[in-house]
Structures are given as C-alpha cells and as structure tokens.
C-alpha cells in the first residue's frame, strides 16, 4: 500500500509543497562505481527514425475532418482602454463560424486575476478577440473587420522606471508584483562592507531574450460530447489539463491532453495559453474541431520572454580574496502579464561562501509581451552580472579569476547551511581549466594587464584573443509526485507508460534505457507511451531540469516491480524456489530441489498466454537535510576584431556535474543546445522595443538574430560523470538548464581578456564593442 507524504519540490528556483503517494522502494541507488549494461551508454534515440523521416506527428500537424482555423485580433496599442468593440461585420463574413471577445467570453479570471479578454490592453500584441473560420485567410480577414475603439493610455517599457510611484500603472494596485520587492538577507551587509579591503560595484543590463520555439505555441481542440481532447505543443500535459478543466468547469477526466512530439518549449510552454482556452471555447461554440496555432510574429510578441533585467551589484572582499559582503538590487521587466518572477539574485545567494548577502528583487509589470520561464530564468542573467564582477574583483586583487572562485568555494549550501548531496564544482573547475589550458594561458606574460597581454600576442593584426570562464549553480533534483507503469507482454516485449512528456531532450530514450537495465529485457523490445493525460499516470512538468531525475526513478521502480512479479510467476510455473529465480538475457534460471533449471522467458510467457504483468512505481522523496544542486564551469576562447567590433567564439569547454550520465549523446545535445542559446544571449539576441510607440521593432527571425551554424564554436563537453550517492535510485541530476547559465558570462570575461574592455550590457554587439574600444 503506497504511503501519503508531504513533499517539497523546487521548480525553477521556486519551492512548492505538495502531497505525494510513494511506494515502499524496491530499488536502491546503483552503486557509484557500478558499470551498467545500458544506462550510461550512447544509445540512439528511440524515436530518431520517426523524427528524421517526418513520420512523427507534432500537435501543429494535427488535421481533423471539418477543422476550423482560429486567429487572434491583437492590440496595436501598448496600453489602452477598449471603448467599443463590434464584431458584427466580422461575423457576417462568409466562412466565419464564431467570434469570441470580451462581450461574450467567460468573465472568470485567468492570469493576474483578469479575464482572458480584458477591457484594457497592456502591450502591443495583447489579445482582443479570436475568430474561428473555415480557412486561415478568412480568419485573418475577419480580424480586420472587427471594429475596436481604443482610448490610448500612457505606457512604460523600462522596469526601473515602471517601479516608480509616478509611472503609468498597468494594474490598479501598481506595477510592482505583490507591491514590494522580494528581499533576502543574511548577516550584516553594511557592517561587512566597511570591513572589506576592496569594494567593487557595477550596473548590469540584459535584454528580453526569446525562446523562438521552432513549433509555435498552439493547440487543436476537439469535443466528443461533453469531453474535449486537446492536442497541444506543451511541456506540461497535466498542467494544460488542469488549466482547461478549471477554466471550463469540467472534471479532469473530461479533458484529455495529448502531446507526442513538440518543436521546442524552453520554459514557455509550461501551462495552457489563451489559444488553448479559445480553441476549446470556439470548438464548443461551433461543434467543430478548432486549430489555434500562432504565427511567427505572435510567437515573438505574445508567448513569453526572458525578463529584461537591470542589476545593481556590489561586492566586498578581503585582500586575500575572501568575500565578505555581496549586495544586489535588481529590476526585472515582467511584461504585461506574469504569474511569478524569476529573480537574478539566485547565483549571488548560492554560488559562493559569503556570510553577508542581501538581494532585493523587483518584479515589475511593463507594457511589453509577457514573461515566461526561459531555461534557467534569472540564473543566467544573474550569473552574467555576478561572474563578470567577480572577474573585475580578481583583477583588482591581482588574483587569477579561477583562483578567486576556488578561494570562495562554498562547502555547504550558503542559504540553508546544509551539506550538499554531492558537489562536483571543484572537479568541473579543474577539468575545464585543463581542457582549455587555463593556467598556461593566463600565466603567459604575467604582470601585464589583459589588453597588453593580447597586444603582445598579436601586435599587428586587428584580431585579439582572450579566454574567460564562469561558474554555474542550479537545482535539478526533481522529486515526487510522479508515477509510472511497466507492462510485460506475453512475447516478452514491454511497454512503459507514464504521463510525462518529451520536450525534445530524449526523455523517451533514457526512460527506455532505465527500464531495460532494470528489467533485463532488451532495449529494442521496450516501447514507451507518454504525453497523454488520459492513459498516462501523473507526472510533473518537463521543466526545471527535473524530468530525468523525477520520472527516471519512478520508471525504474515500476520496472523493478514488474520484474518481481515476473520472477514470482516464472518460479511458480517452473516450480523453482522464488529466491533462486533470475532473469538474464531473456532466460529464467533457478533451482528446483537442488537441480538447476533454465527456460527461456519467451517460452514461459508464451505458455501462460494473456497473463498481465503490470509493474507500478512512484518517485520516492528526496533525502532530507541535504541540498541538491547541479554545478559546473565553462571556459570560453574568443577572438575580437577591434576594427569591426565582431566577436567570434572559437571554443567553449563545458564541465558540469549532473550526477550519473544516463546517456552521453542526449547529455551532450543538452550541453550544446544550452551553450548555443547562451552564445546568442551574449552576442546577438535582443527583442527591441520602439520607445516612442511601444511596438516591437524586430518581431521576426530576420531581425531578431539567433546563432547560425557558422556562429557555433567548437564545444568540448567534459561531464563529471559521478553518481550522486543519495538523491535517487539513479544517482542522476538534471542537465537541461545548467549549460545555458555560465556561457554569456564566460564569453564576456573572455572578451575582456582579449581587449581589456568590460561590458555591463548584453548583447555584445559590434557597436558596443567599438564604442567600448574608443573610450
């Protein structure tokens, strides 16, 4: 009988308390040294063939008979009150089947306690109405026929300005979320600064960064009587189910959410969107399936962004490099709608041993597209600022930047004052430094400043070389509740069933490896079914680097349960002692009255016919009294053309401690993808607002630049592949977010090493580099 427990789980830096049912564990952690047969091997993706051949059906591929196409009318104003809204002309257009807006939509609250179609629009792109029509072209034309009279209101784009009392207000109770900043403090910061030998400060700014998922946000809704099936591009099928059921007043079993494949999410697809709710509403109104997928412009404007940040940092240290005080005041532009904020203070609170720390984080509504979680939200921006300033401190102290970090290495978690379950940060420093040749390079021409050093290296050409590094800390523990099943079929094949979803990281592949390892059934004979709320068992969202360390242990438990049943059944059938029964390479062996018996599993199950073996598993709670974190370091080598301002990243060495590596292929895919997104953030990505109109200037992929293949440097992945001894039965932590965190900081530090100019604003565009050089 499973036990009910109360559990705390940390998602994207936020702690949630939840109940979970946990079974008595059947497995223990694989030994740290244990060489496993399938787990840890570079198995190709179980769905690789389906993906590359185009056979995989993504939610945006769904076509249903009689399906309608939906589209939003969006606000052209950054802030306005809707005086009049008339949809009559649109409704009369042939081919238009339904229009929904504030006049007829459910009044109930959605995000920020506002209805889905509000009287006030708060950014250019805010939803005003939705149309369902026979074709996308008719829906578009109908949107143009909707007559809206707006009363423009003053708007504000900058978070720091928006936080002031006299700024135009987006909401009645002001622009600062919860009315006040989030404050964390330990020690006596003011006193500690007075005792510091060196105090250094800096103001750092980072822009809105966009997820740019290749598959845009969207859903297809199809009613069958009083039940609705939603095909959605989501990283949280159960969350979408709950959102839709709550909003429409349906029982959870009346909403089925299906997602087999998706084209990217990165945190922006953690819950249902207005398109989901409108697809369901419009489908109900028309009695026909409705497809509601956004276009590329809408993806840019309305589906989420990493909050733009402005961070004021101050660090105090002793002559020997020991940190005595750190302080941060940060403003985060949340856009017009947000349920929560991802602060930039995390790295300062957690990364280094420092007794006196205060972080003050303002989450501020601004007249721009909404915030959404984005791959290590807050931590990546915070790490850029903190690790840049640490580099400046190192120079001021005359210390090597890496030595300064090692000097301030935190043996215990500085916030909770508890030991870590495992901590490979020092190993990551060592591994990365060796791979890039850190000390050899930094020691060359010792005594010269960075600028002088690089000039010595290449006195004639316009190109300067530099190396830099940065550290990473992040969660990634995962935890309950999550449940899984493993079915063993009469022909000895097996099916894993759980309610997780593959965001694209290879979840299906690693879960299959884990089940194969535990069951003793070949990898090729196991299939996996996920991404369906009606058939699957509850599983947490694919976010916060949690999926592998959450669902993996539950699947292993289910496989162990199935195997136990299997052995019991086989023992009974063969008349052998239960304890002697073993399954190895598809053969059951055991002892019957002292004699050895062996028989292929296939023969036994074949004889038993449709005996159903179903293993159940749940995710056991995390160990208490320890803190679980992932760690890492990245080292960047760059080249800066001082005549054109172009920065080219030549190489990134990434060394991260994420516990046991389940699959080196899927792991390095995560590391590479994170680094490429981090490189984009460092050098080119930014959503640009027009300050005069509040409109986005670059709402497309032609002007919002993301890295091309030619921008991708050599990436050397050097994982600290060491199982965590206590966190879960795999010894694995998450790897999705860690690699994006230190990339921009490492690049910025390498640029400083190359040209001796420190940049406090991202991205490092050519004109900023040139301007910095000409000062």
């Amino acid at each position, binding site marked *: 009988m499973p036990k009910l427990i109360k559990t705390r789980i940390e998602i994207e830096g936020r702690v949630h308390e939840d109940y979970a049912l946990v079974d008595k564990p059947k497995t223990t952690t694989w030994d740290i040294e244990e060489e496993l047969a399938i787990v840890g091997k570079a198995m190709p993706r179980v769905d690789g063939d389906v993906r590359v051949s185009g056979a995989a059906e993504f939610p945006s591929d769904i076509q249903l008979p009689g399906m309608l196409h939906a589209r939003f009318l969006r606000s*052209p104003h950054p802030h306005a009150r809707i005086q009049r809204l008339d949809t009559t002309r649109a409704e009369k257009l042939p081919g238009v089947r339904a229009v929904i807006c504030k006049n007829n939509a459910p009044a109930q609250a959605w995000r920020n306690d506002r209805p889905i179609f509000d009287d006030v629009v708060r950014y250019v792109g805010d939803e005003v109405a939705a149309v369902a029509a026979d074709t996308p072209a008719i829906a*578009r034309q109908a949107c143009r026929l909707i007559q809206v009279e707006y009363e423009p209101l003053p*708007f*504000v*784009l*900058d978070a720091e*300005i928006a936080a002031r009392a006299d700024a135009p207000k987006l909401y009645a109770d002001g622009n600062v979320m919860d009315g006040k900043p989030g404050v964390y403090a330990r020690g006596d910061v003011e006193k500690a600064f007075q005792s510091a030998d060196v105090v250094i400060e800096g103001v750092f700014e980072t822009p809105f960064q966009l997820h740019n998922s290749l598959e845009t946000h969207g859903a297809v809704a199809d009613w069958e009587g009083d039940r609705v099936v939603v095909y959605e591009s989501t990283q949280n099928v159960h969350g979408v189910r709950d959102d839709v059921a709550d909003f429409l007043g349906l029982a959870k079993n009346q909403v089925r959410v299906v997602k087999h494949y998706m084209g990217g999410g990165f945190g922006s697809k953690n819950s249902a969107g207005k398109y989901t709710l409108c697809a369901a509403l419009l489908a109900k109104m028309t009695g026909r399936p409705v497809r509601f997928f956004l276009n590329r412009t809408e993806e840019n404007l309305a589906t989420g962004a990493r909050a733009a940040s402005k961070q004021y940092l101050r660090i105090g240290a002793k002559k020997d490099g020991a940190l005595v005080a750190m302080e941060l005041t940060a403003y985060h532009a949340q856009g017009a709608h947000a349920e929560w904020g991802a602060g930039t203070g995390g790295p300062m609170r957690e990364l280094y041993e420092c007794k006196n720390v205060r972080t003050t984080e303002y989450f501020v509504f601004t007249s721009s597209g909404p915030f959404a979680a984005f791959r290590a939200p807050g931590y990546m921006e915070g790490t850029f600022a903190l690790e840049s300033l640490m580099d400046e401190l190192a120079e001021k102290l005359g210390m090597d930047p890496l030595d300064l970090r090692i000097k301030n290495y935190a043996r215990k978690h500085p916030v909770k004052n508890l030991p870590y379950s495992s901590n490979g940060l020092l190993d990551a420093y060592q591994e990365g430094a060796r791979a890039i040749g850190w000390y050899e390079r930094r020691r060359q021409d010792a005594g010269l400043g960075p600028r002088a050093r690089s000039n010595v290296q290449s006195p004639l050409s*316009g190109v300067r070389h530099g190396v830099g590094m940065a550290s990473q800390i992040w969660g990634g523990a995962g935890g309950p509740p999550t449940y899984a099943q493993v079915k063993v079929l009469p022909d000895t094949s097996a099916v894993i069933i759980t309610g997780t979803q593959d965001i694209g990281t290879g979840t299906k592949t690693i879960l299959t490896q884990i089940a194969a390892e535990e069951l003793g059934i070949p990898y090729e004979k196991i299939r996996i079914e996920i991404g369906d709320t009606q058939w699957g068992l509850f599983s947490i969202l694919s976010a916060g680097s949690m999926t592998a360390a959450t669902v993996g242990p539950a699947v292993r438990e289910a496989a162990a349960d199935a195997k136990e049943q299997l052995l019991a059944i086989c023992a009974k059938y063969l008349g052998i002692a239960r304890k002697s029964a073993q399954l190895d390479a598809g053969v059951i062996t055991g002892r019957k009255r002292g004699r050895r018996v062996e028989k292929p599993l296939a023969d036994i199950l074949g004889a038993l016919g449709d005996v159903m073996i179903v293993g159940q598993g749940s995710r056991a709670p995390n160990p208490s009294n320890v803190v679980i974190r992932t760690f890492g370091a990245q080292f960047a080598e760059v080249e800066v*053309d*001082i*005549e*054109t*301002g*172009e920065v*080219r990243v030549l190489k990134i060495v990434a060394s991260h401690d994420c516990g046991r590596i389940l699959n080196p292929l899927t792991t390095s895919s995560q590391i590479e993808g994170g680094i490429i997104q981090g490189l984009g953030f460092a*050098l*080119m990505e930014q959503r*640009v*607002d*027009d*300050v*005069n*109109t509040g*409109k*986005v*200037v*670059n*709402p*497309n992929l*032609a*002007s919002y*630049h993301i*890295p*091309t*293949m*030619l*921008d991708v440097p050599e990436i050397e992945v050097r994982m600290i592949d060491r199982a965590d001894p206590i966190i879960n039965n795999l010894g694995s932590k998450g790897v999705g977010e860690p690699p994006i965190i230190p990339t921009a900081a490492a690049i910025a530090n390498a640029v400083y090493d190359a040209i001796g100019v420190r940049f406090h604003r991202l991205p490092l*565009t*050519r*004109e900023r580099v*040139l301007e910095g*050089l*000409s000062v």
Partner: protein
Amino acid sequence: MFEFASPTTLDDAFQLWHARARWFAGGIDVVTELKAGVPAPARLINLKQIEEMQGIAETEGNLRIGALATLREIAENPIVLARYRALADACELSASPQIRNVGTIGGNLNQGSICDYFRGDFRCWLKGGASCFMRNGASRDAAILGYAECVHVNPSDPAVALVALDACISVRGKNGAREIAAAEFCRPPTADNRRLNALQPDEIITNIRLPITSSSRSSFLKTMDRAAFARAGQRCRPLGFRRWEHPRGARRSGRRRAGAVARIARGRDVGRAEIVRQTRRARGGNNRARRASARA
C-alpha cells in the same frame, strides 16, 4: 486572389502589364509581402520563363548577367570569380543559401528597404508617412551618410559591388529599353518619389553589363551581427577604416565604395573623415532616442 501569368518573351510580358500587376521572379520580397497581408496585386507576372533574361555570358567586350541569374549562380560563376571577385563575394555574403538559390540579381537590386520600421507595422516616411521612425527610435541600423528624412540604408550587397565595378543596368519598360549606370540606378528617395532606384513602375531590369577591364582585383568586405544571414553592419571604427581602405594586397589607389553606411550604394569614393563626421551626427540620433526612453 490574383492571376498568375508566365510569359515566355519580354514582349508578351509587357502585353500582360497593367497598373495593378506586379513583376515576380525569385519571389523573396513579393511572397514575403503577400504573406504580410499587403494588398495583393491583381496579377503576378512571372518572369522566370523569359529566355533573354537568363544566363551569364561574355558578349562584345562585356560580361552580361541576366537579371534572372540567381545570387548563387553569380557567386559560383568562374568568370565572375576570376574578374569580378567583389561581386561574387557580395552575392555569397548575401542572405542565406536558401535565398541565394532562388533570389535573382534583378530582384536583389530592386528589393524594398530592409529597415525594420519599413518592414514592420509603422506608417513610415518611406511608405508615404510623415516621419522616419528610426531617426528617433531604435537607430543602430540607421544610415551614417546622407542622414535625411529617411535614414534607412541600402539593402543590397551586390549593388555596392556593381557600383564599384562600373556596371551598367539594362532596363526595359512598356515604352522601350534604356541603360542606367549602376551608380545612377541607386538613388535616394525624395519626397516626390520615394522609390529606392531609378526604375519606373512598369520597368524591369533585363540584364547587367560589366565592362571587361584589365584591372581585375577587387574585394567585398562585410561586417555582420552574426556569421551569416545578416544585413551588413555599418558601424566601423575610424582605426579600422584605415585597414578597410587598404585591404591586404590592394594598391593604395584602389577605389572604395561603401554600402550599408548610406542610404544608397555610393557612386564616389568614401573617405574616412566623412564617415567619422557623419557617424557623430547619427550618434546624436541615438542619444535622442535614449533620452526619449528615459522620459518614458
């Protein structure tokens, strides 16, 4: 809804032309505009079947490049590579492989502005509006030279090379053919005529002629915000300009033509002093934008 016509001769093409028709070749610009919901023309006249606008060949002391030659064809053509390297490089550095595979040189020279404000949801001066949004807005891509009512920059990389190489653009319209020097072809928009080139609405580029000269050394340099698929960036450091004036191996007397710094591909030598002076003016625009931001 529109009609799609595919004539096989230029004469037929002009028979099909009327005021609400649009020429169509690679479709890079036209299809983008159609998708953006710009009112569709009544008729698209597809030029791609017209033989006399195709190919790259030597004729009578000239190299003739058909207007339908794709950027890729030009970038890979052995004669262009050997004698007009700047043009080959300019084509190779334009856009992405996909666009170079279908985008034609005629379409490239006749493309609309790639200013974000012009392409975006702004009723800007170039589209017939009252003012230029970039002047006081996000102006990092604003022109440095010819800072005027509209500060967009010349969008075409090959145009810069063609101006430098003294190319001649052969044009044909309803009322006959004419030839325009590349330097005259690119013209800044004026209040009365906001077109970016010397073409009349009914006119099309049929081919481009490059004189065969003894001097065959040229090069095209482009700075970008990323390694590929980006518009040319105009910010250049005065120190760097020196190197730009004298690329390795080039003689001091080489001529220089600047592209993305100005509203048009410039027909005369661009000097360092002018760039520096004009950069300061343009930066003034940036500062104005920053102050506006602070006020908001």
